[in-house]
């Protein structure tokens, strides 16, 4: 320990000179600083909730519509009428579609990387998947709007023709595939990398001896996965999916570019139209007056609570997993 340390932090200048007691002062300051940062994070979280709630109450007090059931968003009008029914529906439906597509495929890719791919291929693949998780959402957005939408038109017509009897896949409105279904597919593609890379980590942690136990009983590769890999990794996959769900719920740009918004709720997911919380904020923000902004903030608060719920659930599952991990005592 030298007195000529170049990384001396400025909060503790007198320290280096006088022997033992100096450490105490430095310790106190440093501990205080780091503790303060932790507290600051909590304060930020608390104030996000507090300030959004405050502005939201202003908006809600003047709302002439019903915030939960109104199908319209005329917050800048006089009197203001707005409700989140359509947004909630669109957010939930598009996220469900995204999860239904992304989770099985992500588990498949994760298994591919952890248990199927030739070893030489596995490491670079994992690397590429991690890189793809970093592609900005606006790029997924313009790719989705300019490339994916035209490609999906045919699929939509086909689904309508052969699966139209299911109601859900009935396309009652003409128009290109700027629908909740397309949004769901795009969100699925977007969250695929993150769900894959978390699941892959979990699958790689399966104790070797559990897999060998199954192998030694004469299990095929698939049976090994079913007997030891999937049970061990189940809670990990669930929490990975929750992370993905959190992203899908709050995604703004990819939805804003692809969807052609409307304030209708329709069970026909192939019809263009609908909306999500984040997309609505992005779309209405420019034209909103001050009160309109408060209304948007109110919808943002609902989105915030929704993601809090999902993330909290994910954390709980992870915490439970620590107690019941498959490791032998």
């Amino acid at each position, binding site marked *: 320990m030298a007195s000529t340390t170049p990384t001396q932090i400025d909060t503790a200048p007198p320290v280096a000179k006088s022997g033992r007691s100096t450490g105490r002062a430095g310790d106190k300051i440093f501990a205080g600083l780091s503790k303060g940062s932790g507290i600051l994070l909590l304060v930020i979280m608390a104030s996000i909730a507090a300030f959004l709630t405050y502005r939201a109450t202003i908006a809600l007090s003047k709302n002439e519509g019903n915030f939960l059931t109104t199908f319209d968003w005329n917050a800048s009008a006089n009197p203001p009428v707005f409700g989140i029914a359509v947004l909630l529906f669109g957010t939930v439906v598009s996220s469900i579609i995204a999860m239904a597509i992304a989770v099985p495929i992500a588990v498949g890719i994760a298994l591919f990387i952890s248990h199927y791919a030739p070893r030489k291929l596995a490491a670079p693949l994992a690397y590429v998947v991690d890189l793809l998780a970093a592609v900005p959402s606006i790029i997924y957005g313009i790719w989705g709007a300019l490339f994916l939408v035209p490609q999906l038109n045919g699929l939509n017509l086909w689904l309508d023709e052969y699966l139209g009897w299911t109601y859900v896949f009935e396309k009652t409105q003409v128009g290109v595939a700027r629908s909740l279904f397309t949004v769901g597919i795009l969100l699925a593609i977007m969250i695929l990398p993150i769900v894959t890379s978390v699941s892959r980590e979990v699958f790689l942690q399966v104790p070797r*001896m559990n897999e*060998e*136990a199954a192998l*030694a009983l*004469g*299990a095929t590769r698939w*049976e090994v996965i079913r007997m030891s890999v999937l049970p061990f990794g189940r809670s990990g996959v669930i929490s990975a999916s929750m992370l993905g769900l959190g992203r899908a719920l709050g995604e703004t740009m990819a939805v804003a570019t692809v969807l052609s918004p409307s304030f209708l709720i329709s069970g026909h997911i192939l019809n263009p139209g609908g909306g999500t919380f984040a997309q609505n904020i992005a779309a209405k923000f420019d034209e909103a007056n001050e009160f309109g902004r408060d209304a948007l903030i109110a919808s943002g608060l609902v989105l915030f609570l929704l993601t809090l719920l999902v993330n909290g659930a994910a954390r709980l599952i992870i915490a439970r997993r620590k107690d019941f991990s*498959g490791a*032998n005592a």
Partner: protein
Amino acid sequence: MAKRIDVSGLSAFYGTHKAIDDISMTVEPRSVTAFIGPSGCGKSTFLRTLNRMHEVTPGGRVEGKVLLDDENLYGAGVDPVAVRRTVGMVFQRPNPFPTMSIFDNVAAGLRLNGSFKKSELTDIVEKSLQGANLWNEVKDRLNKPGSGLSGGQQQRLCIARAIAVEPQVLLMDEPCSALDPISTLAIEDLIGELKERFTIVIVTHNMQQAARVSDRTAFFNLSAVGQPGKLIELDDTDRIFSNPSVQATEDYISGRFG
């Protein structure tokens, strides 16, 4: 049930590294054969070549022949899955499936191979647990997770799981090294009973154990670290421990190295 194993000219590799070199031996049916030798001499690797578990290790590769009665395990068209069904294995550390109950653990191998009636399954599970001397201890809690048992019980559970599918051969890779002396004794007694029905091969670090449980003993050694392991000699256990024909064996057994 039990079958004879004939190994000829067997070498095993990890990538380019040769772990064991040119091993030939015969294992008699309904007997216990113990493998002893210093650490790293390849006895565990050799054991794993006997049910094609070695090739599961990344880079694992085998040359040579292993005949189970007359059929070569490494012949063309042989299904490793079928081999492992015929040659069961018990591992160093007890490894019951953590998410399964005791019952399901024992039934796991059977369920892989087609459908059994519930009553048949209950029957086999009971017999296997009795065969592993575990029935009396667990019969009241078959639906509890297997990972809740003690280490020795877990290992006997794994033995029950292995014998439930009625293999021809049972391989044991240091089955007692993670257990206390009492549990070890229980397993050793069990091995004595199981050899009436199965061909048993056991790897052990404990020479007293080899002397206690085995009919024949094989001594493995390696000439230097990094060199492949070799079979030095295989003989009746009594002879190996009283009057071995190779000096190195005697040195090892009398504790001069290893």
